[in-house]
């Protein structure tokens, strides 16, 4: 049965997974960042299909509007880098492991079993872990005040987590500014000299160093 939703789902799945594959395989990091925007749009489309409209809007605002722009800025600020190869030595092994993990998730954890009880490849889950839970009840409709209830739950049931999230965002903002701050050349030179002095002190054999400490102590 080919419904409108099914067609939309297939298009979204192809676009999202294709864009995600492009993100991890493209040599040019800037193009990969643009593909990441496309993948985020695809996920926002899935949120619309799942009737989580607020989260579709939040996905566009937070991921595409903020995180993607941040990533593109970082790519442009580190422009001078040229890589001989986009992937490291273990990329082949990692690709194999990822593919195996995907097959394991699909076959063993068994999303098929949840909705298609008749279709179970090799019937592995039933043999290994007992019959997986099947929920037979009908899917309920989303209540029209779901968003209001979420807002109330955030300041009631999840109040501590909500406050901690605010603290986390504030600390992340301060930390990001502190880590990425522009430092004066004088400071950097001073720090490098201190590091070099420490390295030189560490390079001296331990016995004379202890002697030196003892003599300076005696001197004082």
């Amino acid at each position, binding site marked *: 049965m080919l419904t409108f939703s099914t067609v939309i789902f297939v298009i979204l799945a192809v676009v999202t997974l294709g864009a995600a594959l492009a993100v991890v395989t493209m040599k040019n990091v800037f193009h990969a960042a643009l593909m990441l925007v496309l*993948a985020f749009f695809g996920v926002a489309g899935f949120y619309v299909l799942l009737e989580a409209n607020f989260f579709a809007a939040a996905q566009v605002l937070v991921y595409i509007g903020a995180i993607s722009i941040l990533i593109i800025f970082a790519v442009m600020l580190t422009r001078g880098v040229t890589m001989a190869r986009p992937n490291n030595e273990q990329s082949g092994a990692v690709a194999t492991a990822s593919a195996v993990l*995907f097959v394991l998730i*699909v076959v063993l954890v068994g999303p098929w079993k949840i909705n298609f009880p008749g279709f179970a490849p090799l019937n592995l889950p039933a043999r290994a872990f007992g019959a997986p839970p099947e929920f037979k009840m009908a899917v309920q409709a989303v209540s029209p005040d779901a968003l209001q209830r979420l807002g109330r739950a955030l300041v009631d049931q999840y109040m501590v987590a909500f406050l901690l999230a605010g603290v986390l965002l504030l600390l992340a903002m301060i930390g990001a500014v502190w880590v990425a701050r522009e430092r004066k050349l004088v400071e950097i030179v001073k720090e490098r000299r201190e590091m070099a002095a420490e390295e030189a002190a560490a390079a001296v054999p331990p016995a004379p160093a202890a002697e030196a400490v003892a003599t300076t102590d005696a001197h004082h």
Partner: protein
Amino acid sequence: MNSINGLPLAPFLVVAAGLFVIGLYGALARKNAIAVLMGVELMLNAVNLNLIAFWRYVAPNSSAGLAFAAFVFIVAAAEAAVGLALIISVYRNLRSVDPEKLDQMKM
């Protein structure tokens, strides 16, 4: 009726699993730290897709799924800000964003 608009839950979970393993590959196999962060973002998106799919099909009357998804959004934003600040700081000092070159803390 086990579906909304003719769509069952399973395809959403398969797409989320695919997105997650693609992100995992990106996070482990890329030679550019920014691309590694992109892989992590893809994985977080897969997790969020799973959370919202399960919310819609299993417990649409509870706010738990949406609340967790909102917290994943917040953590992702904080992680991206700090991660990219670190990468820019490393680039200023080493003129490189290759994670394999960051071995100054190795003994």
